[in-house]
C-alpha cells in the first residue's frame, strides 16, 4: 500500500468507534504492536555528503536496498551511519523517491549512469513518474540504438580475417571490403572505371555526329562508328560478366546472393548484350531488342557499390516507405478527384483538350506539382476556379510528408558519419586492447626473467620493479597454474624459436610432462645459447629447488582499504587454484 494511505490508517481505525453501537458481534481485539519502537533518524553518508531521514521513510519500500536488511552490509559501526561510495547527486533523487513515492529522472544526467544507480539501489525503472517517463524512455531507446549500432560496427567485416579461411572466403571479403587488400582495391577502381565508360558510351552513341561523306542526314554516333562502340560494349560486358561470376563463386550463400538486389542489377545490366548476340537479324524481333537496350542504363546503379551516399539515399527512402506511401496515396486520391471535376467542368467547351478523365490526369499532375506546362488549360470559369483550387491543394499535399523524409535522412546520415568515425577509432582501440593484454603477459615474463623467484637477499631482487598488490597476486596465480601443468609461459618469439630447434631434430626429452625440468632445459639450450632461454632454464631450476621459499617470499599484505573490487574476485580466483594441487600430485618435483 502506498505510504500516503498508511498515514491515514490510524484515523480510519479510530473512526471505527462509530460502528460500535451497530455491531452485531463483539469486536476483535486490536493487534499488539510488539516492536513499538519510536521512529529513529538514520544517517546515510554518500561519499561524504550526509543525508538524514526517518527510518519509516526508508521502510516504505522493503524490496529495495535501503528498505531491506541489505543496507546492514553497508553499516559502519564506528561512525554509526550507513556509508555508500556512490554519487551523491543521484542519491538525492533516490531519496526523494522514498519521500514522495515518485521517481524523477534528472534530464541533465547520463541515462546509463542513472540506470546503474537504480540497479545498485534495487529500484525498478518502471516506477518513474509519468512526468519523466517519456523522456526516460526516449533517451533509453536512443542509447540502446546507439549501442546496437556500435556493436554492429564492431562486428563489421573490417575485423581481421580468421587465420584459417578458404580462398573463397577471402575472395568474398575482398569483394565486400575493397580496402582490405591492394588487389581488391585495383579491381574496385577498374570496375568503377568501366561502369563509367559503359554509361558514357551509351549516352554518346545517341548524339548526332557529322554525316558520312555523300549523305546529308545527321547520323547518331552509334551508327557511324558501329564497330568502335561494339568493341567498347563487349569489353565492358566481359568485365561485368567476369565480376558477376566471381561474386557468384565467392558468395557464402549462392541462393541468397542471387536474390539480392545488386546481383539482379548486375544480371539486368549484361543480359541485353547476350540476348543481342543470340538474336537473329530479324526485323520484327530487333524492334523488341532495341527496347531491351534501355536496360543498359541500369548499369549506372552498379555505382551504388562504390558510393556511400547513394546507399544512404536508398536506405532513407526505404525507411520512409510509409511516408512515401502516404504521399503517393493522397496524391492519387487528389488527382482522381480533380481530374473528374475538371473533365466535367470543361466538357461543354468546343475543341477542349480535356477529352476524357485519364486525359485530365496529365493536367492535374502538372498543376498539382506546380509545373504548369500550359499544354492543357481550362477555358470555362468553373474550370479555372477548380484549376486554382487544384494547384493550391497540390502544394499542401506535397509539402506535408517532405519534412519527415528530410529528418529521417538527416538522422541516418549522421548515424553513418558516426559509424565511419567509430570504425576509424576501432583500429586504434583494438590495438590498445591488444597492447594492454600483452602488457600483463609481458609483466609476468619480465618478472620471471628478473629473477623474481630467487631469494630476496640477492642483488637481482633489488632491481625488481615496484608492483602493486594486484600484480603480486596475479603473478602468484599464474605461477600456480604453471606449477599445476608443469609448463611455463613464454612469449611468441621464444616459442617459435623452440619450435624451430625441435624441428631441426635436436634431442629433447620425450615425455616433457613427467621428466624433470633440468633435462629439458639443458638439451634445448646449448645450441641456441640465447640469454633468454638460459635465464628461463636457470629460473626453473631454482624454482624446483625452492618451492616453499618462493611461496613464502610472495608476501601478500593485508589490504583492507585496498582495491577491494579486484581483490575480492582476485582472492576468490586464487583460491580456486586449490583445485590445482591435487593435480600436482602426479608431478615429481611438486
Amino acid at each position: 500500500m502506498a505510504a500516503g494511505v498508511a498515514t491515514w490508517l490510524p484515523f480510519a481505525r479510530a473512526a471505527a468507534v462509530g460502528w460500535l453501537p451497530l455491531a452485531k458481534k463483539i469486536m476483535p481485539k486490536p493487534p499488539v504492536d510488539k516492536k513499538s519502537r519510536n521512529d529513529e533518524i538514520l544517517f546515510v553518508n554518500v561519499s561524504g555528503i550526509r543525508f538524514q531521514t526517518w527510518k519509516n521513510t526508508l521502510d516504505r519500500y522493503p524490496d529495495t536496498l535501503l528498505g531491506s536488511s541489505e543496507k546492514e552490509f553497508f553499516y559502519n559501526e564506528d561512525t554509526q551511519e550507513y556509508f555508500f561510495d556512490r554519487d551523491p547527486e543521484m542519491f538525492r533523487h533516490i531519496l526523494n523517491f522514498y519521500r514522495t513515492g515518485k521517481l524523477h529522472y534528472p534530464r541533465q544526467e547520463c541515462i546509463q549512469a542513472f540506470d546503474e544507480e537504480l540497479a545498485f539501489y534495487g529500484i525498478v525503472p518502471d516506477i518513474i513518474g509519468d512526468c519523466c517517463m517519456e523522456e526516460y524512455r526516449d533517451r533509453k531507446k536512443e542509447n540502446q540504438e546507439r549501442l546496437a549500432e556500435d556493436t554492429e560496427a564492431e562486428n563489421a567485416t573490417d575485423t581481421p580475417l580468421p587465420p584459417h579461411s578458404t580462398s573463397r572466403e577471402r575472395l568474398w571479403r575482398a569483394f565486400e571490403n575493397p580496402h582490405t587488400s591492394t588487389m581488391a582495391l585495383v579491381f574496385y577502381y577498374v570496375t568503377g572505371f568501366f561502369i563509367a565508360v559503359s554509361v558514357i558510351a551509351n549516352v554518346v552513341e545517341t548524339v548526332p555526329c557529322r554525316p558520312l561523306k555523300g549523305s546529308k542526314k545527321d547520323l547518331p554516333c552509334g551508327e557511324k562508328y558501329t564497330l568502335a562502340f561494339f568493341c567498347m560494349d563487349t569489353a565492358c560486358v566481359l568485365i561485368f560478366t567476369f565480376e558477376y561470376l566471381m561474386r557468384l563463386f565467392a558468395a557464402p550463400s549462392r541462393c541468397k546472393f542471387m536474390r539480392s538486389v545488386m546481383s539482379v542489377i548486375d544480371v539486368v545490366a549484361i543480359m541485353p548484350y547476350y540476348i543481342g548476340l543470340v538474336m537473329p537479324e530479324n526485323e520484327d524481333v530487333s524492334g523488341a531488342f532495341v527496347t531491351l537496350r534501355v536496360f543498359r542504363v541500369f548499369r549506372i546503379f552498379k555505382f551504388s557499390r562504390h558510393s556511400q551516399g547513394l546507399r544512404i539515399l536508398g536506405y532513407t527512402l526505404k525507411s520512409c516507405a510509409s511516408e512515401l506511401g502516404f504521399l503517393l496515396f493522397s496524391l492519387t486520391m487528389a488527382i482522381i478527384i480533380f481530374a473528374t471535376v475538371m473533365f466535367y467542368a470543361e466538357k461543354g467547351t468546343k475543341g477542349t483538350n480535356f477529352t476524357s478523365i485519364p486525359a485530365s490526369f496529365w493536367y492535374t499532375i502538372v498543376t498539382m506539382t506546380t509545373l504548369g506546362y500550359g499544354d492543357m488549360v481550362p477555358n470555362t470559369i468553373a474550370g479555372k476556379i477548380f484549376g486554382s483550387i487544384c494547384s493550391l491543394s497540390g502544394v499542401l499535399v506535397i509539402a506535408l510528408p517532405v519534412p519527415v523524409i528530410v529528418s529521417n535522412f538527416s538522422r541516418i546520415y549522421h548515424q553513418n558519419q558516426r559509424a565511419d568515425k567509430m570504425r576509424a577509432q576501432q583500429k586504434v582501440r583494438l590495438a590498445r586492447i591488444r597492447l594492454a593484454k600483452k602488457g600483463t603477459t609481458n609483466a609476468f615474463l619480465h618478472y620471471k626473467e628478473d629473477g623474481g623467484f630467487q631469494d630476496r637477499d640477492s642483488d637481482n631482487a633489488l632491481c625488481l620493479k615496484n608492483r602493486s598488490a594486484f600484480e603480486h597476486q596475479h603473478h602468484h596465480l599464474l605461477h600456480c597454474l604453471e606449477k599445476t601443468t608443469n609448463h611455463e609461459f613464454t612469449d611468441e618469439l621464444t616459442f617459435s624459436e623452440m619450435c624451430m630447434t625441435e624441428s631441426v631434430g635436436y634431442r629433447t626429452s620425450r615425455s616433457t610432462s613427467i621428466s624433470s625440468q633440468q633435462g629439458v632445459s639443458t638439451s634445448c639450450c646449448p645450441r641456441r645459447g640465447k640469454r633468454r632461454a638460459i635465464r628461463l632454464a636457470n629460473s626453473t631450476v631454482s624454482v624446483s629447488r625452492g618451492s616453499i621459499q618462493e611461496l613464502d617470499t610472495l608476501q601478500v599484505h593485508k589490504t583492507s582499504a585496498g582495491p577491494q573490487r579486484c581483490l575480492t574476485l582476485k582472492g576468490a580466483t586464487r583460491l580456486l587454484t586449490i583445485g590445482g594441487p591435487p593435480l600436482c600430485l602426479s608431478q615429481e618435483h611438486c
Partner: protein
Amino acid sequence: MGAVVGTLTLQTRQRRPSRDKLYDDLELSVVCHRPEGLEQLEAQTNFSKKELKVLYRGFKNECPSGVVNEETFKQIYSQFFPHGDASTYAHYLFNSFDSSQNGSIKFEDFVTALSILLRGTTTEKLQWTFNLYDINRDGYINKEEMTDIVKAIYDMMGRFTYPALKTDTFKQHVDAFFQKMDKNRDGVVTLDEFILSCQEVYSTCSCSKWHTMHTIFVVCI
C-alpha cells in the same frame, strides 16, 4: 517510382529495433537478488561481520543486480588468464559454485564457497575439490571427467609454453593422477579414495605445499 525505391535500397542492413521489443527489455531488465541477513550469513559461514561486509561491498560493486551469470564469470576469468582460453575451466568452476544449479551465482553461494576454501577444514576443501572434478555429480570421478578438467586447465596455458605442449601431455597427466588416486583400480575415484590419497601424499611430502598455500590465502582479503 516504386521501382526506383526498390532498387535504391541496396546493401542496407535491417536495422530498425521495434518499439515493442524495447519496452519488453525495459520491463524485465532488473533481476534483483537480495542476500539473507548479515546475522544468518555469519552463522552459516566462518566469516566475521566485518569480513562479510567487505566481501559484499566488492560483490555488489561488480554485480549490482546481486547475481553473477556464467558469461560474466567467463569474462572475468579470461582477463586473469589472457594467454589461453579460460572459458571451459570457468564453466566447470561456475557449476561447482552454483549450488542451486540455476545458472547464476548469488552472494550466498559465493560466500559459502569462499568460507570453505579459506576457513574450512582440509577435509572440506578436499570435498569441494572433489565436487569440482565430479562434473556430473554422481559421486565418482571417472577418466572422462578428469580428462575434461585437465584439458580445460591446460587450455588456460595458451599456445606459447615452455616446453611446448604435446597432444598427449594431459593424457599422461590424467593417467598419473589415476595411478595415485585409484586405490582399488576400479577405474573411478570415490570421495573417500580421493581424501585418503590426498591426505597421505601431503602428510609424507616434505614440501607440504597444501598448508603453505592456504595459510597465505587466509590474508588475501
